């Protein structure tokens, strides 16, 4: 394949060629028009590149993208009522939301409950409705138990209300009607400390039940603090590494990379050993008489613990991008500034520092992204006040089993991370990410 110089390419379609009539297209060595040949070669190259990447893309689609997608689905899915109380879900649609539904709906409910008792699957719908309305768990399971052997009473409405007065509550029926569509917003509402009131309007949670918004703000705030700490500690180190001769700096760089390579759990364990009240640091302070033995400092299981341990864990992610930017700054700028009479401080502030801003931006966003999604360290050393929003994702996944709420909180967090990631891409470009 022979290619002519780019400058001599005259593209017939580009309109560059004058009105002097059609010029014969340039031909490649095999006699085809060069443009076609080029495009074909280009296409082949593109296809080959894509082909190489495609196995990985397919793999990630299955092992990563689909899971994320199924989590997003979970956060709005609410099929318990529609699948486990199907007849009730249908019958309640005819109800206008005022007073109580008609006898037919009550009969449908009785039928569904009986069936559910046989199939032993009422637990899920009972749990689901209990999230929306406390007391529904025992209302449903209790009612179902009581009516198993009941055959067509005069009025199901009276019978059910007789068994449990909750069935006479308009609010209960509004919840059932609302949750009959298969999809729900209530997980997202809960994640934002809001709820439906008895009338079905969206309102804020009462103050005694607001948890997540404050925690999200606290997570952001602590992540900012951790990022700032990493900057304060990372900048001098990166500066030193960048200005030392390579043989020395390579050795010191190992000290930055070692924590990076060490297990997260090991690093967290060390901090527990150091910071706990019978730990190394408190023992030293007591031994030198700074702290009274009975009044040891509480340095762990609170925000201090989280911030110290996480700063340690994330510090390399700040130092590495800073170092690579500083390494590219020629020392002659500083010398020039000095030679023109600037003091060391002025030269640094006016000449050097501005050039390191891209590195600060890259490091800060990276540290911040990693910080707000951290789980292990806050869970182990954060105690109560050092908790992150991620702790609640784990809690709802594993303990309370409110998977929809876990998914909703996770989706909100994911949204925040993706936005930051896009910002990072604009500033740095993910293909410029380096690992030591």
């Amino acid at each position, binding site marked *: 394949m022979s290619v002519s110089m780019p400058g001599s390419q005259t593209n017939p379609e580009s309109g560059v060629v004058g009105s002097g009539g059609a010029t014969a297209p340039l031909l490649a060595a095999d006699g085809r028009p060069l443009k076609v040949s080029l495009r074909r070669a280009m296409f082949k190259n593109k296809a080959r590149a894509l082909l190489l990447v495609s196995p990985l893309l397919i793999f990630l689609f299955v092992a990563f993208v689909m899971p994320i997608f199924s989590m997003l689905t979970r956060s709005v899915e609410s099929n318990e009522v529609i699948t486990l109380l199907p007849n009730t879900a249908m019958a309640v649609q005819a109800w206008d939301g005022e007073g109580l539904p008609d006898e037919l709906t009550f009969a449908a409910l009785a039928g569904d409950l009986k069936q559910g008792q046989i199939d032993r699957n009422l637990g899920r719908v009972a749990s689901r409705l209990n999230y929306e309305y*406390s007391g*529904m768990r025992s209302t449903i399971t209790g009612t179902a138990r009581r009516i198993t052997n009941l055959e067509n009473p005069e009025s199901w409405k009276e019978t059910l209300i007789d068994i449990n007065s909750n069935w006479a509550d308009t609010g209960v029926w509004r919840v059932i009607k609302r949750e009959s569509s298969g999809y729900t917003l209530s997980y997202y509402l809960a994640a934002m400390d809001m709820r439906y009131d008895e009338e079905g309007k969206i309102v804020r949670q009462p*103050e005694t*039940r607001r948890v997540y918004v*404050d925690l999200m703000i606290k997570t952001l705030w602590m992540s900012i603090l951790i990022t700032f700490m990493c900057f304060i500690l990372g900048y001098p180190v990166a500066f030193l590494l960048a200005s030392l001769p390579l043989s020395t700096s390579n050795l010191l760089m190992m000290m930055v990379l070692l924590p990076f390579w060490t297990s997260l759990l090991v690093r967290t364990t060390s901090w527990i050993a150091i910071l706990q009240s019978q730990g190394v640091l408190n023992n030293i302070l007591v031994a030198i008489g700074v702290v009274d033995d009975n009044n040891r400092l509480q340095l762990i299981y609170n925000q201090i613990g989280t911030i110290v341990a996480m700063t340690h864990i994330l510090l390399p992610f700040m130092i590495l991008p800073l170092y690579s930017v500083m390494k590219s700054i020629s020392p002659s700028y500083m010398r020039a500034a000095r030679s023109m009479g600037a003091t060391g401080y002025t030269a640094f502030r006016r000449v050097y520092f501005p050039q390191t801003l891209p590195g600060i931006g890259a490091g800060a966003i990276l540290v911040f992204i990693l910080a707000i999604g951290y789980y292990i360290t806050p869970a182990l050393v954060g105690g*109560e006040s050092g908790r992150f929003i991620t702790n*609640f994702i784990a809690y709802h996944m594993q303990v309370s089993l409110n998977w929809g709420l876990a998914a909703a909180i996770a989706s909100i967090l994911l949204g925040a991370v993706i936005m930051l990631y896009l910002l990072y891409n604009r500033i740095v470009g993910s293909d410029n990410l380096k690992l030591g």
Partner: protein
Amino acid sequence: MKKSFRKSALTAAVMLGTLGVVSAAQAQQPLNVVSWGGAYTMSQEEAYSKPWTEKTGQRIVNIDRSATGLAGLRAQVEAGNVTWDLVDMLPADAKIACAEGLIEILDHDELLSPAPDGTPASQDFVPGALDECFVATIVYSNIVAFNTEMFPADKQPSKIADIFDLENYPGMRSLQRRPINNLEWALLADGVPHDEVYEMLTTEAGLERAFAKLDTIKDNTIWWSEGAQPPQLLADKEVAFASAYNGRIFDAQVNENQPFEIIWDGQVFELDGWVVPRGKMDVAKDFLRFSTDTERNAAQASYISYGPARMSAAGLVGQHIPTGIEMTPHMPTYEPNFATALPKDDEFWADYQDELNERFDAWLAN
């Protein structure tokens, strides 16, 4: 035609062969038993597992996941790959698991052995011990304990109200990170009579009163989440008081000679026992029968201070095997300990835990 017949015959033979191998392997398969870990699992090991392995040769694998047992069961059933064979669970969780169809319904008289005097199993357990899908093995208690070295000898705490008294009993406290028990204790300490506690907790005024009481010690409290933490925190003197399962404190008292004392006043007692995950009846039923018979049930009480759930076992409780200590005074059900005990209301918590967990979290965060 002939060929394909031979082929399918071959396939069938291979399949049968595999089946044979599988069922033979099944007999040798160890039993995966999920429990709470620590001293409690140890007592089960001594009282049930070791004799069982001696008798049948089947190995028991202990998995310490009961704290997230319901989540684990749900996940396994959802994944269609149930690996747990028998799970130790609280009755409240068992009720939920049962309603969701995650665990097997038990026919108590058929599955469980009768008492030595022939009383059928259904008549031999303490009230509430047998539920549709649940069979209790022990009666245990949530109590508050303290480290005696943290207080002067003439000023040792003795009442549940003392944990809220920072003036006379200073120091850090450790309570379980959940509303259950803590709300009850707050009201009891505030002077609410035992039989009005749960009724009061259904009202806003009652909840406000309980949280206000907890507010008084909030800044002095470390919250724990694993049963092994409170004895550890007490031993390290990280805290002066800690709520705990009474057996864990007993274990630290007698096996590690820790200077701990239990405040029996206001103990909240409940049951704990076995459930069989869905589809595991065949593999689990023999061990279930063995581990719930009168002899085993009484034997467990020789290793940990939890009361046996079988009435026929109560009379057989004797001495702590490793140390020879008389067990009876350490039992939650021992008369002097039991005078001010409060039974945990499972129904109340089943209905209100979603709401109260949220409220408790909000309270902790603010």
